[in-house]
């Protein structure tokens, strides 16, 4: 960007440090950038002027848009929020719905302090002598025979809640017995007898199953019931079954009266 353009802005608003524009990628979001701007003020964060900070941020965003720098949405959201906060700080109005502007500013200041505290803590943590970098463990560990015994951790609470749970289940079980919807063998026998009469040749047992069963449990029970029903019919001399191999399809056909079992 041209230095001349930049100075024009400078006259109206607080300075936007040039490196901030160039280092946009280095920020971890708008709060992180606000913190960097706050540090530029070189004052204790507890006494920082949120109004001045908002101005700096808004100037930065304006500048970034002017030079068509891509700004992520959350930077723009923060800009809108700061613009709103600024207007509230400058033009106090009795608005019962929103918290007072000073409170909002204080919350932002707290958030900046908290983030700075964590950044400092991180730096202090990383400055400690670290295992494997500054401090070393035994390089050639020797065998120690470790016998592990299981210890069960159960608290009185676990015990009592287990009993409570059990009691609860006992008390309520009667009320909540769900009727099982299963396909009965009787129904299947009836159905097979009727259908086999219309099938002249070997037919896959599977094709006799009732269509359109949605419930998988009912579907499986239908399969089992039809298989059992087919066995019943074979036993009664009314049908033949055959299967080409293990897990292969099962074929069934009507046995003509007097015909020998295959």
């Amino acid at each position: 960007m041209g230095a001349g353009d930049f100075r024009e802005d400078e006259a109206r608003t607080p300075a936007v440090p040039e490196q901030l524009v160039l280092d946009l990628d280095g920020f971890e979001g708008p709060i992180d950038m606000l913190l960097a701007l706050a540090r530029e003020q070189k004052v204790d964060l507890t006494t920082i002027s949120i109004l001045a900070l908002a101005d700096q941020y808004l100037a930065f965003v304006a500048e970034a848009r002017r030079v068509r720098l891509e700004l992520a949405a959350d930077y723009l959201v923060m800009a809108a929020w700061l613009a709103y906060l600024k207007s509230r700080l400058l033009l106090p109005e009795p608005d019962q719905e929103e918290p007072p502007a000073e409170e909002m500013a204080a919350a932002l200041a707290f958030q900046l302090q908290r983030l700075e505290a964590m950044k400092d803590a991180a730096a202090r943590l990383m400055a400690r002598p670290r295992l494997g970098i500054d401090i070393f463990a035994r390089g050639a560990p020797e065998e120690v025979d470790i016998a592990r015994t299981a210890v069960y951790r159960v608290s009185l609470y676990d015990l009592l809640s287990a009993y409570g749970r059990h009691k609860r289940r006992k008390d309520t079980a009667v009320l909540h017995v769900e009727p099982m919807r299963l396909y009965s063998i009787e129904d299947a026998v009836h159905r097979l007898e009727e259908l086999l009469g219309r099938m002249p040749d070997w037919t896959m047992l599977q094709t006799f199953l009732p269509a359109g069963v949605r419930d998988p449990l009912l579907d499986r029970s239908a399969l089992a019931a039809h298989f059992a029903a087919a066995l019943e019919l074979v036993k009664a001399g009314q049908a033949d079954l055959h299967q080409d191999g293990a897990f292969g399809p099962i074929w069934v056909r009507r046995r003509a009266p007097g015909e020998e079992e295959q």
Partner: protein
Amino acid sequence: MIRDVTDPQAIEERIHRLRLIEALLFASAEPVAEAALAARLGADADVAGLLDELCRHYAPRGVNLVRTGAGWAFRTAADLAPHLRLEEEVARKLSRAAVETLAIIAYHQPVTRGEIEAIRGVATSKGTLDLLMEQGWIRPGKRRETPGRPLTWITTDHFLDHFGLESLRDLPGLDDLRAAGLLDSRPVLYGVGALDRDEEAAADGNDGDGDGDGDDGDKKTP
């Protein structure tokens, strides 16, 4: 051993070198050759003398400085080898089925296995009672004088100890449990016995399921 006793700087230098050798040998995965140590410590270091001093310092201790092949290394003292074992306790979580069984024994004792099963409505796997007995929480009581003379189960003193109870009378009664919210009926959907059994199988196999809030049988509906 320390020469130049009159020169504090020399003493300090020597101590620093001793410490450095200790640290280097400790941290190294392989024995370190004397020449390599000499290279680290500087040309004027009396490596052989330093090693000798360390050797003698560690000789009576649980860890010795030994020469092995071309290098030097710390090794645990040979006479301690048979003692180098540790018992480690691994915290495990008791399955829901086991906790519930224990609770029922505590509240209904003396109680037979058949009665436990009748109360819980599910079969008790053999492992459950064994496990509770292994932990010292339950023990066999008298036989019930009924046909088959089944064994009853009761809790032990260790059970009271573990759960911080002075006596069995301290077990909270049903009213207490209700007052504590442990008996609140929540809107839960229970299936028939088959689901209970599934639930137990799952709880036995996977103790991560200590959901604590009742029945998740509905998730496991076949």
